[in-house]
């Protein structure tokens, strides 16, 4: 591990956390974005649209060579000069040489992330050409000597007062901090430059093989000016922008603005093919096709879906980490979830290593990505790569390899810890304060104490009365249910028994392995997968139930992934995956059991928190809500119900507690504002985080698992006889 780098990064996080104004702006932006995005997609089937984009883009990757040839041949036939640049230096050299040849003193640029990627402005500056950003946001950032903090809205981190100050320096007048006025100042200041510039530089949103042309998707009109007035037009194009046909281009153009800014379409879509007239001559059009790591990304089977990205920026907009620390911290040049991946390939793993760890794994990006990229999975893979390259730290590695892989040792140590904690728990179930250097952990939330009797032991003493069971199910407890909240497992047994289902608890089960994956320790995760598959299938259960969605994801998805190339294990993994269900869905879908709870509950105002891995990992969110309502409660929705609570396992405990704390504060605020007296959820991890946050903030709202609420309702049932 690179200690200094981690330390520097932590400092950046601290600075960002100290600017609540920015956080506030980004939160509001995230909210507004979701509203306008939903409106923009009104009447359209997003899943279908993004499926098509993904399919098309994947096809392009598979036939990249031919399509590229076609694109180049068509572009050249139309009079474009095409240059294929291997890397940043190559592209910069080509464009700088061109600028020198043209004796260009000024180049006007419209927005191009690729030019940021290769630091084109610096290269031009060295060649004696001033590169002037004309996109308003880019210009602001350029004047401030910064880099964009968002791929679509470069200056989203700045406020009008700061902009006014920058502009005042430019004009030599005191410019008032009124947005309309500032926009007018930009119009006036930049207008002349289009006439003076010898070169216009743009990016491209698509490059169309069928035509040999490009399309630019913009709002301000500067790209039209930059591609019209100067004699030379250079379009800098990442080679992944290639699409086969005009239909494919139309599909990208259809989805991109809707998902980027919630616009049906941007003000301008400009389709340019070939050297068009310019004054009395022809325009000199250069297409610079940039590789710079894209080919190696295409070769990485685990990561290459990232090439499907159409750069809408939405993965940042909805990201709780981005909203908390901003794009300068949660990004290198490319920002947000996709930024992590692109940074690793375009700017080197070292630049991506801290970002890779800063992802909390909530999958909110995955749910909005118009190219259907499983960003979280790629990021986890990169975390593993960083783990392999740099090591995950000797202490951590020891815990995972020597302790967790050895179930008996692991569980013995947990029990030992439960004895050791005695002085701080003072016999209570939660820990409010920890001594010495552990104390920051309980500053902002209490932590649950390790239970005296783990579920695996309590289970044996629990009598089950099911005469003719409909099903025999195995419970996969997961660490939190097993050692922190055993009562939750016992409640599940009651609920199941009431529905004529018998539960057994395979004693050989171990941790699901997700914490290992999140720490970049794949080897341990694979070993745990095998242990758990054997343990869970041994008793031939009809189903395997989980009370933790992260475990459910592991059993349903990760185990299969880990073992898919191992014929002996793949089938068993598939089997386990096919019979694993989260408890709430099981009650509703397999047992059709909502009826037995009908109106048994003591009516309470309850709000529901969607756990990231339940909603976006397993696709379950309606089931628990239905059960809560049918049992007689009054369900009220909080704002941002499906926003992460900030737990993220070790994320909140060791790696990024400060970010976690802020995200939790947002959640506690939303819960409180809902007016509910109880917040329900289906994840012991969220329970630990949210309960801890509510307690510490002294908000009188209980946090309960849906299964606990159902068990409580059952206890109200008048006893027959």
């Amino acid at each position: 591990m690179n200690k200094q780098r981690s330390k520097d990064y932590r400092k950046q996080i601290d600075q960002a956390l100290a600017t609540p104004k920015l956080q506030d702006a980004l939160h509001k932006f995230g909210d507004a974005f979701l509203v306008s995005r939903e409106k923009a997609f009104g009447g359209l089937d997003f899943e279908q649209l993004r499926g098509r984009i993904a399919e098309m883009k994947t096809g392009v990757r598979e036939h990249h060579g031919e399509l590229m040839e076609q694109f180049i041949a068509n572009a050249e036939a139309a009079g474009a000069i095409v240059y294929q640049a291997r890397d940043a230096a190559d592209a910069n050299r080509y464009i700088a040489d061109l600028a020198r040849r043209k004796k260009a003193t000024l180049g006007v640029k419209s927005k191009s992330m690729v030019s940021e990627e290769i630091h084109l402005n610096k290269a031009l500056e060295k060649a004696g050409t001033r590169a002037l950003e004309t996109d308003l946001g880019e210009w602001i950032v350029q004047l401030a000597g910064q880099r964009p903090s968002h791929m679509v809205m470069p200056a989203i981190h700045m406020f009008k007062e700061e902009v006014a100050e920058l502009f005042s320096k430019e004009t030599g007048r005191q410019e008032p901090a009124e947005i309309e006025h500032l926009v007018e100042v930009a119009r006036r200041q930049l207008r002349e430059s289009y006439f003076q510039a010898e070169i216009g530089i743009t990016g491209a949103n698509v490059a169309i093989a069928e035509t040999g042309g490009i399309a630019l998707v913009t709002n301000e009109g500067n790209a039209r000016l930059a591609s019209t007035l100067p004699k030379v037009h250079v379009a800098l194009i990442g080679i992944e922008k290639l699409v086969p046909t005009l239909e494919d281009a139309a599909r990208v153009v259809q989805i991109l603005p809707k998902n980027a800014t919630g616009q049906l379409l941007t003000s301008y879509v400009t389709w340019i093919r070939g050297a068009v007239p310019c004054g009395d001559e022809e325009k000199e059009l250069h297409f610079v096709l940039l590789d710079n790591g894209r080919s190696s990304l295409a070769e990485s089977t685990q990561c290459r879906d990232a090439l499907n990205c159409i750069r809408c920026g939405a993965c940042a907009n909805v990201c709780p980490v981005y909203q908390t620390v901003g794009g300068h911290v949660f990004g290198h040049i490319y920002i947000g979830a996709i930024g992590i991946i692109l940074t690793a390939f375009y700017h080197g793993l070292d630049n991506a290593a801290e970002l890779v760890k800063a992802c909390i794994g909530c999958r909110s990006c995955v749910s909005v990505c118009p190219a259907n990229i499983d960003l979280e999975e790629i990021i986890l893979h990169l975390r593993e790569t960083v783990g392999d390259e740099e090591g995950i730290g000797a202490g951590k590695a020891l815990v995972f390899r020597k302790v967790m892989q050895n179930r008996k040792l692991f569980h013995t140590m947990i029990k030992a810890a439960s004895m050791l904690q005695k002085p701080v728990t003072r016999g209570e179930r939660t820990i409010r304060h920890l001594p010495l250097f552990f104390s920051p952990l309980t500053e902002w939330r209490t932590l649950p104490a390790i239970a005296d009797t783990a579920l695996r032991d309590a289970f044996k003493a629990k009598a089950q009365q099911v005469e003719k069971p409909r099903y025999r199910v195995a419970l996969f407890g997961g660490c939190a249910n097993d050692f922190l909240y055993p009562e939750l497992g016992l409640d599940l047994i009651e609920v199941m028994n009431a529905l004529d289902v018998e539960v057994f608890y395979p004693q050989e089960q171990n941790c699901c392995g997700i914490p290992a994956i999140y720490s970049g320790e794949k080897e341990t995760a694979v070993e745990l997968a095998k242990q758990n598959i054997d343990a869970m299938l041994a008793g031939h259960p009809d189903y395997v139930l989980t009370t933790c969605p992260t475990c459910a994801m592991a059993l349903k998805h990760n185990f299969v992934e880990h073992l898919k190339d191992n014929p002996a294990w793949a089938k068993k993994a598939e089997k386990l995956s096919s019979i694993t269900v989260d408890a709430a869905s099981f009650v509703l879908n397999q047992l059709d059991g909502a009826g037995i709870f009908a109106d048994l509950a003591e009516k309470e105002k309850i709000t529901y928190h969607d756990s990231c891995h339940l909603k976006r990992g397993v696709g379950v969110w309606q089931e628990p809500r239905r059960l809560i309502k049918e049992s007689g409660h009054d369900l009220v929705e909080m704002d941002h119900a499906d926003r992460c609570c900030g737990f993220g396992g070790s994320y909140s405990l060791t790696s990024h507690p400060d970010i976690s704390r802020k995200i939790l504060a947002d959640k506690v605020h939303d819960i409180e504002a809902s007016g509910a007296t109880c917040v329900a959820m289906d994840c012991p991890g969220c329970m630990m985080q949210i309960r801890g946050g509510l307690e510490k903030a002294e908000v009188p709202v209980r946090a309960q698992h849906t299964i606990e609420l159902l068990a409580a309702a059952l206890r109200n049932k008048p006893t027959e006889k």
Partner: protein
Amino acid sequence: MMNQSLIELFSEKAVAVGAEVISCTSIAEAATFVAGKVDGPLLVPTFPSGCRSGLETVLRDAGLDVLNAFSSETAGRADGGLTGTNFAIADTGSLVLESTAEDIRLATTLPPKQFALLDPAKIVADGLAAVDPMRRLHQRDARNYIAYITGPSRTADIERVLTIGVHGPKELFILLVPGFSSDFLEM
């Protein structure tokens, strides 16, 4: 979709993004409207439907200071620019302008006011339906500069506040003139 409903959808969407849509019965009526809006030179590049209909004269008769040949410098000082439209896209309220001729681009990027004459018979349903005429334009001409224009120029780069007219036109007027040109490939 029936043409009438396409016109309605187009108008609704165009207005929603800040364009003004004006139904005219004749070019003369359109010219009167333009004359009421423009204060200074009006760029009117040459385009087939305009020539056919004697547009220039009609505009001059309405009292407009029409420039039909101009350099970029002159264009930069004009108050408005007026062109025809190849066709339009209903579901986004967009105009499609084949702008390969440079004066079309100058007239539609530089002046603060943009006017477009559109025959309402030339409206397609959506971006995918636009591909057919787009492809034909690409087949007809060896080189293209085609613009989809949806409302006036805009930005939200300062504090995400939507602001109109940053680099391109600040106002967009779409003049619906039936019978003006029914050919999707001509402006």
